[in-house]
C-alpha cells in the first residue's frame, strides 16, 4: 500500500469538536495507515450546556458505531422532533419547525403549493397538521419511521445531549480505540513558513503532517494568520446565558424557543433536567436583566447560570497550510437552530472527502475552503430568516433583529418566496425547502402566488388528497410510542 501522504494527524482542542474529529478521522483513515494523536485542552463546558442536534448527526454516530439507545442511556439524552417557536407575550401564534416533511406530493408536485392554494381558498388547516413529525411532537410522541411513513415523507429527529456527558462518552470511544491522548493546559504553535511543524506543551513536542484545530477560538489557524470575517450585522444577540432548570414531568419531544422582549429563551429538555439558553443584546440589556428575563420566560427556577459571549463569523479559510479548523475554530454561529455540531460534522465529512491524496494538496484545500464557505453561508442565511422576518412587536431586540443584514442570496430567497412560495435552490444547503418555508409561513409571509402547474389538478382531487393525508397523520401518530415510554424502554434495555 502507498504510504498516506498526511499520515500523522494531530487533533488539538477541547470538548465535542475535539473528540468527534479524533474519532471520525481515526475510524475512517486507520485502514489507510493514518495515525491520530489527540491533544486535549481544558474543557469550556458548563454543567448546564446541552448539545441540541440536527438529524444528520445520527449518520455520523453510525459511522462511529455509536449505538443510539446506549448513548441516550449513558448521557441521559432525549429525542427532539423539532423546535416550537412561541411568543412569550402570546401575541403571535406558535409554529413548529419539525425535522420532517410537511405533506406529501400530489400529481408529482410539491405539497406546499397546494396548501398555499387551499389556504387562499379558505382552508383553515395549518401546515404543521400535515407533518407526521410535528403532529407527533405536539402529542408527546416520537415518530419512528417505517416504509409507510417514508412513502409519505421524511420523518427525522435530533437529540438533546447533556454536553459534558456526551463529551465523556466520545472521549471514552477514543480511549477504547487506543488513541494517543495528551492533556495540555496551553500549547505553543511551532511554524515552518505557512505550515505548522509541531506543537510544544509541558516540555513535549508533537510533530504532525496535518493539524486539526478544534480549539474553539482557533489557536492553530490563528497562528497561520488567517482572517476572520464577522457576521455580527446579521444577528442581534451578542450574549448568551445558559442555565439548568428542573426536569419536566413528562419530557417533551421537542425544544421550545420563546421570543421575549429582551431576546429569546430556549428550553431543551433532557432526561434529568431542562437546559435553558437565553440570547440577548448587551447594548439593550444588562446581564442582571437577562437573568430575570430567562427565569421569567422559562418559568423555571434556574441554577448553574453562566454567561458567554456570542460572536458569529467565519474564517476566510477554514483550511490554511496544513491546518484544518473544525467547528467553532472555523465558524461560530448564532445559537438559534443549534447548528454547532452540524458545522463540526460538515467540516469532518468534507475533510474526509478531500483528505490530502498527495504531498501537494492545494487543490483539495481549495475545494474544501470553497465548500465550507458555501455551506456555512447557507446556514447563516437560514438562521438570519428567523430574525429578519420576525413579527414580535414592542421589543427593541426584535426591532433591531428586523434590521439585520441579508446576503444577496438570502434577499433573493425571501423575494422569490414572497412572489411564488418557492425556495430558490442553492448548492451546499443544510436545511430543506420545508424548513425554510416553516419560518417564512411561521412569521406570517403570504406568497403572492403559487406554482401555476398545480392548477391542472382538479380541486376535488386536491381536497380528497388533503383528507387522506390528515387521516393518515392522525392514524400514524396514534400508533407511535410516547417519548416518555420510549425513553423508559431504552432505560430498561440497559438494565436487562
Amino acid at each position, binding site marked *: 500500500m502507498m504510504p498516506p501522504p498526511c499520515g500523522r494527524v494531530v487533533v488539538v482542542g477541547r470538548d465535542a469538536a475535539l473528540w468527534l474529529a479524533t474519532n471520525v478521522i481515526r475510524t*475512517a483513515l486507520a485502514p489507510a495507515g493514518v495515525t491520530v494523536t489527540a491533544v486535549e485542552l481544558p474543557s469550556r463546558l458548563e454543567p448546564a450546556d446541552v448539545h441540541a442536534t440536527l438529524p444528520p448527526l445520527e449518520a455520523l454516530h453510525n459511522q462511529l458505531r455509536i449505538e443510539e439507545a446506549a448513548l441516550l442511556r449513558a448521557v441521559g439524552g432525549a429525542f427532539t422532533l423539532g423546535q416550537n417557536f412561541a411568543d412569550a407575550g402570546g401575541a403571535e401564534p406558535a409554529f413548529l419547525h419539525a425535522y420532517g416533511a410537511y405533506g406529501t406530493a400530489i400529481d408529482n408536485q410539491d405539497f406546499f403549493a397546494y396548501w398555499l392554494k387551499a389556504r387562499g381558498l379558505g382552508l383553515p388547516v395549518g401546515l404543521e397538521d400535515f407533518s407526521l413529525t410535528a403532529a407527533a411532537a405536539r402529542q408527546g410522541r416520537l415518530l419512528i419511521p417505517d416504509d409507510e411513513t417514508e412513502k409519505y415523507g421524511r420523518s427525522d429527529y435530533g437529540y438533546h445531549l447533556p454536553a459534558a456527558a456526551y463529551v465523556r462518552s466520545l472521549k471514552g470511544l477514543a480511549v477504547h480505540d487506543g488513541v494517543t491522548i495528551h492533556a495540555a493546559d496551553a500549547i505553543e504553535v511551532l511554524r515552518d513558513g505557512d505550515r505548522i511543524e509541531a506543537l510544544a506543551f509541558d516540555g513535549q513536542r508533537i510533530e504532525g503532517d496535518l493539524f486539526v484545530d478544534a480549539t474553539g477560538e482557533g489557536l492553530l489557524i490563528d497562528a497561520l494568520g488567517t482572517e476572520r470575517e464577522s457576521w455580527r450585522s446579521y444577528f442581534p444577540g451578542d450574549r448568551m446565558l445558559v442555565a439548568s432548570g428542573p426536569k419536566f414531568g413528562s419530557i417533551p419531544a421537542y425544544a421550545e424557543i420563546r421570543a421575549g422582549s429582551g431576546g429569546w429563551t430556549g428550553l431543551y429538555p433532557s432526561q434529568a433536567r431542562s437546559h435553558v439558553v437565553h440570547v440577548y443584546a448587551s447594548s439593550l440589556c444588562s446581564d442582571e436583566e437577562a437573568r430575570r428575563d430567562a427565569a421569567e420566560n422559562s418559568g423555571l427556577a434556574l441554577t448553574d447560570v453562566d454567561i458567554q459571549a456570542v460572536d458569529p463569523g467565519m474564517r476566510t479559510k477554514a483550511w490554511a497550510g496544513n491546518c484544518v479548523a473544525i467547528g467553532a475554530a472555523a465558524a461560530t454561529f448564532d445559537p438559534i437552530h443549534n447548528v454547532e455540531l452540524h458545522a463540526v460534522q460538515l467540516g469532518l465529512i468534507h475533510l474526509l472527502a478531500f483528505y490530502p491524496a*498527495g504531498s501537494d494538496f492545494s487543490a483539495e484545500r481549495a*475545494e474544501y475552503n470553497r465548500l465550507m464557505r458555501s455551506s456555512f453561508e447557507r446556514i447563516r442565511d437560514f438562521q438570519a430568516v428567523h430574525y429578519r422576518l420576525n413579527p414580535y412587536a414592542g421589543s427593541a431586540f426584535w426591532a433591531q433583529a428586523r434590521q439585520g443584514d441579508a446576503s444577496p442570496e438570502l434577499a433573493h430567497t425571501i423575494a*422569490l418566496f414572497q412572489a*411564488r412560495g418557492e425556495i430558490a435552490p442553492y448548492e451546499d444547503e443544510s436545511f430543506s425547502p420545508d424548513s425554510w418555508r416553516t419560518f417564512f409561513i411561521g412569521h406570517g409571509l403570504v406568497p403572492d402566488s403559487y406554482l401555476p402547474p398545480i*392548477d391542472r389538478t382538479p380541486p376535488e382531487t386536491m381536497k380528497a388528497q388533503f383528507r387522506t393525508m390528515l387521516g393518515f397523520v392522525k392514524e400514524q401518530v396514534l400508533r407511535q410510542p410516547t417519548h416518555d415510554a420510549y425513553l423508559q424502554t431504552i432505560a430498561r434495555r440497559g438494565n436487562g
Partner: protein
Amino acid sequence: MMPTAPLKVVIVGGGTAGWMSAAGLVRLLASADYDLTLIESDEIGTVGVGEATLPHIKTFNDMLGINEAEFMRDTQATFKLGIEFVGWDKPGDAYIHPFGTFGEPWAGLDFQHHWTRAMLAGEDVGPLHDYSYAIEAANNAAFEFPNEDTKSIRSTYAYAYHFDAGLYANFLRGWAMARGVSRIEGQIVDVGRNAGSGHVETVTLKSGAVIAGDLFIDCSGFRSLLLGQTMGVAWQDWSEWLPCDRAFAVPCARTEPLLPYTRATAQPGGWIWRIGLQHRTGNGHVFSSAFCSEDQARETLLGQLDGAALAEPRLLRFQAGRRAKAWEGNVIGIGLAGGFLEPLESTSIFLIQAAVTDLANLMPTRGGIDRRLADEYNRLFEVHYDRTRDFIVLHYCANRREGEPLWDHVRNMRLPDSLAHKIALFEANAAAPDYKYGLFSRDSWLAVLVGQGIVPRGYNRLADSLTLDELGSKLRDLKRRIRTNAAAMTGHGDFIANYCPAPTAAKPMESAA
C-alpha cells in the same frame, strides 16, 4: 386565480424550441389561465440539426404523456446510450461518454477512487470505461430497456434518442395544437413596444395582422428577434473557449449495424458528428473558420461519409455564448435565441426542456410581470448554460493533438476558473464534480476527464478500507457481470425493427417546418 381574461402568451418561432415550449406549457398550465399562440413562417427554415438528445428528454415526453413507440416511429428515432469521442485525446484514441454509471460505490465511496487506487498500485485493472454497462452495450450495438431492479447491473444506465428534429417539431405541433395551442402562419415584420415599460405589446405580420400578447417567448433562433434585437439584451461571447463557429450538415444513407450511440470524430479544424436514424444517418462538420476554410470543411465532411450523401451539405454560422439574461421585461428567449453551444454533448434540446420547465414554474400570473420571478429564471438559466459550457470546453482543452493549430490553441487557452479548479481537483484526488443543479452528473464528468487522458495521481484514502485482494476480486466480478449481461442483449437494429419501425419512405429533414 382571478376570473379575468387568460394571460396571452405568444411564442415566436416554430422549430424545436417553439414547439417544445408550446407543448410543455399547454401540458403544464391550466387552459383557463393561459392562452397560447405560436407564430411560425414556412418561409423561414429551422436549424433542425439537433438530432441527438440526452436521457432527460424521456422525462419531458413522459410528462407530456407521449407514447414512446409512436413518437419514435414518427420521428425515425433510434436509441442512444452515449457518445463516442474519436481522436479527441489524440488521433487513434476513442472513448464513450455513457448515459450510465461507472461501477458501484463500495465502502461508501465512489467507484473511481477504488479504480484509481488499483491502477496506481500497478494492478492490471484496465481502463475505467470497462466498468460501464452502458459502454459495453453500446460497443455491442445492443439495446434493451434498463432493468427496474436497482440491484441489477442492467439498471445502471439510462437512454436517450436520436431523431429527426424537424419531425419531432412536427410531432409536437400536432400534439400541442390538439390541446389548444393556436398556430398562426406568418413572418414578423414589426414589433410594437410600450413606450413606458419597454415591454413588447404586439408583433405585426407581413400580412398586416397584429398579434397582441402579455408575454412573448422568443424562439426565433439565432436571430433572437425579440430578446436580442428588440430588447437589446447583450450577448456574451464564449468563442475564446469554443472557437468553432460554422457547421456543414448533410444526411447520408443508413449503414449497418445501427449504432446506439452518437459518434463525434475530432478533425484538424473541428469535429464531425454522426447520428444514425432509422431512415438515414445525420452527419455534420463543426469547425472553426479561423483554422479551417469552408471549402476544406465541406470536403472533409463529404470524404468521411459512410453512406451515399442524400443532399447537398448545408452551411450554418454561429457563435458560442449566451445572452446576459434569458428573461428581460416580458420577453423570454428559449433555444438559440437565448444561447448557443455546439452540439458536442447534445445539450440544445435539454436546455430548451429545462427552460420550459423552469418557465412553467415561474410563469407570470394575470397580476403582470414579476421581476422576482424573472430574477430566479435568469439565475437558473446561468447555472444551466455555464455548467454545460465548462463540460464542453473540457473536451477541447484536455487534448494531446500536438502540432494541430486549433488543438494547440485550445490546449493552451486560459480556462474558466470554475473548470480549471475541477480538473486540478480530479488530478489531485480523483474527485469528480458533484453539483446538484445544472447539467452533467459526476459519471459524465468522469467519462470525459478520464477519456481525455487525465490521470489522477491520488485517490480518496477511504478506499484503503478494502484490501487490494478484495478490491481485485470485486473489480473482476464487476467486469464479468457487465460482460455476461451485456452479451445477452438484443441487437439495437432488431430491437428498433420490433419496437418502433418507421415507414421507410420518410420525408427528408429539409421538409420539416
